[in-house]
């Protein structure tokens, strides 16, 4: 980090203040998504305990599950990232983004996307789940809403790239400040990867749902979806990695070792996140095994940057804990900032992510995938990743972000600490239940109370899923209580509480090779890898649109 931008302070100029106001509303939009999705989660947890809230016909189970998936992993994650990553870039560049209109546009696109997608979901015209596999056909407006949400992320990238260009002109020869670098690389990765879903929407689902074309090729649309659908998980995760790298070690009083290694980690994600999507299609017909194996192999490669992250962070945390008097092989862990909800929530999220990463590697293991594909193992896995590593980190970061945006003091630090712990314990029980049942063959996307089939082997897992899920729900409610009370609070946050300092490095950006900053070069290399991975796949599977749309909902 350069000397003048070591963290996030309250705004310095009026323009920056305006931008932050928009970023704040963008963030609040995400909390609305979290609230709706979490509410649906309560129903899903109760369903596993044999309490069928969907029998009452307010909404059917799959309509609820569609809302759960879309509002949590598309709305909540995207809007948080658009807000947090842009904020970090503003502070890293130490200037407002170029320009305010783009910041406003991004917020409005997200808001329009949410409204457009929510209406058909609530009316039951889009009960296709967040994967929206054709030839199930949803309302045109649902697809349009999803498209606008994606375009909103592109606009955020455009603003950051323009700002970087201006900053570079003023600071010739210097490396992009790390916090902005991480955000920009993340957004380049996603913008490139989202071309898959953009083609799926613009060329197929939008015209098809309007009646302009009659038929689609379901394997083509599915392959396009997963071309974006795997890298999307890194688009959820990497904004949180920014905080794991730059916020958590600092709060633990530790230093990170090498700025360059962090940049290399993000570049590895840029290169490897996308050419792996076929691992979601291991059990599909119509795709050659060799291609599946190649994507499976690349998936193992993308495990590496997360392992380096684990090492780097652990080293930084240990450094901090030892400086604070920690001793022993593991005893230093006690000296981590367990009294600070912002740090504690993210430390727990990291622990959850270890389990999430390992369960992910199991699913990616080609033949092993046959055991768990489309079983409850999958939600068991991703509630540890996006549902914990990402969500719990965002909730923890909220305890800083909201005082920062509003100037109001966090309502109750103890409650915030309890909140992150309850969520963590809940998700461990929940995922244990889901993973065990997945191994016993229980399908995911299961309205358990309404299913015609079942197995006695699922009883314990269902109980754990239900009980764990209810604990997560309690934590979810508590989160919104804390958020609401903080917003209503009359107590102002101290300057220190409003400021977020970034981690220091033993070897800062002056030691990092200049080639790491050649983002055009790395983007081109990443694009080549995507083409190498997907051109053979699309040629081999061919294209024959023979499927009309169906609405079995």
């Amino acid at each position, binding site marked *: 980090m350069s000397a003048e931008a070591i963290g996030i302070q309250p705004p310095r100029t009026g323009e920056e203040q305006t931008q932050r106001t928009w970023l704040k509303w963008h963030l609040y939009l995400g909390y609305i998504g979290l609230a709706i999705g979490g509410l649906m989660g309560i129903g899903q947890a109760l369903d596993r305990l044999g309490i069928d809230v969907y029998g009452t016909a307010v909404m059917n189970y799959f309509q609820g599950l569609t809302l759960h998936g879309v509002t949590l992993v598309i709305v909540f994650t995207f809007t948080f990232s658009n807000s947090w990553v842009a904020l970090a870039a503003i502070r890293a560049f130490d200037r407002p983004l170029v320009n305010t209109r783009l910041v406003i546009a991004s917020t409005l696109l997200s808001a329009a996307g949410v409204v457009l997608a929510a209406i058909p979901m609530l009316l039951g015209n889009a009960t296709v789940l967040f994967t929206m596999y054709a030839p199930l056909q949803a309302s045109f407006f649902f697809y349009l809403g999803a498209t606008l949400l994606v375009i909103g992320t592109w606009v955020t990238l455009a603003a950051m790239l323009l700002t970087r260009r201006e900053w570079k002109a003023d600071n010739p020869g210097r490396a992009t400040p790390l916090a902005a670098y991480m955000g920009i690389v993340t957004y380049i990765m996603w913008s490139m990867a989202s071309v898959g879903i953009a083609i799926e929407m613009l060329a197929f689902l939008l015209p098809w749902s309007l009646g302009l074309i009659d038929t689609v090729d379901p394997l083509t649309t*599915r392959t396009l979806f997963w071309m974006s659908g795997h890298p999307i998980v890194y688009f959820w995760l990497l904004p949180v990695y920014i905080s794991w790298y730059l916020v958590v070690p600092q709060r633990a009083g530790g230093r990170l070792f090498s700025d360059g290694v962090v940049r290399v980690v993000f570049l590895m994600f840029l290169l490897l996140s996308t050419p792996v999507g076929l691992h979601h299609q291991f059990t*599909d017909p119509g795709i050659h095994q060799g291609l599946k194996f190649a994507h499976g192999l690349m998936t193992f490669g993308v495990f590496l940057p997360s392992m*380096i992250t684990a090492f780097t962070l652990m080293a930084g945390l240990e450094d901090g804990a030892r400086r604070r008097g920690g001793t022993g092989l593991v005893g230093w862990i006690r000296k981590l900032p367990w009294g600070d909800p912002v740090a504690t929530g993210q430390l727990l999220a990291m622990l959850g992510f270890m389990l999430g990463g390992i369960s992910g590697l199991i699913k990616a293991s080609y033949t092993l995938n046959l055991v768990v594909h*489309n079983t409850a193992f999958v939600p068991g896995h991703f509630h540890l990743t996006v549902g914990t590593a990402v969500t719990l980190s965002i909730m923890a970061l909220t305890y800083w972000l909201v005082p920062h945006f509003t100037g109001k003091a966090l309502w109750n630090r103890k409650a915030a600490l309890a909140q992150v712990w309850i969520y963590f314990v809940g998700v461990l029980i929940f995922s244990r239940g889901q993973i065990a049942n997945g191994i016993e*063959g229980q399908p995911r996307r299961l309205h358990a109370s309404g299913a015609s*089939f079942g*197995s006695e082997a699922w009883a314990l897992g269902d109980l754990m899923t239900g009980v764990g899920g209810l604990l997560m729900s309690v934590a979810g409610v508590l989160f919104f209580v804390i958020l609401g009370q903080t917003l209503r609070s009359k107590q102002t946050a101290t300057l220190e509480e409003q400021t977020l300092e970034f981690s220091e490095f033993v070897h800062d950006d002056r030691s990092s*090779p200049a080639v790491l900053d050649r983002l055009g070069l790395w983007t081109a290399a990443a694009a080549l890898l995507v083409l190498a991975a997907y051109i053979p796949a699309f040629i081999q599977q061919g294209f024959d649109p023979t499927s009309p749309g*169906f609405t079995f909902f």
Partner: protein
Amino acid sequence: MGLQIEKVEKRFVWATIGALALGVVAIGYSVTEMGVHLPGHDHRIDPMQVVRGEAAPFDEPGLHELEDGTYEAVIVAQAFSFETGETMTVEDAATGADREIGVLRIPRGATVDIVATSRDVLHGMKILGTNVNVMLIPGHVTRVTHTFDAPAELQLLCTEYCGLGHNQMFAMVVVE
């Protein structure tokens, strides 16, 4: 200056690469030595022809014995049932009512080439207690081979959301 990386971290990276390589070797072993295979490219088919019953072998669902003593099981999925050539009555776990569903009766020890497709939307097909777990995509033929060693009554479940009746969609495999 070059990239700064701690010595221990370098070792850790190599250890990770080693562990991942070991994983790849294990996967290779499962394919070549244990004979576990994923479905691959078979052939395309017009789902509308399947609907009209014009596309072999899907015009005749059910278990067929082939000349070499092995079996072929033809299955057609649609919202919300599996057509397997034969039906049986089961008690629906949700409603408690009796219901007719598809059944595949397989002689014990038979090696069965399962050939399946969908008439409408995406479905999944997982036979509990086995490694048969595949996607059915309209326009494509899914093929998977399994040997049914022990007598059993196995549930064959739809594992991909296909509409509001998705959790009613299952069939039975009876190994006798």
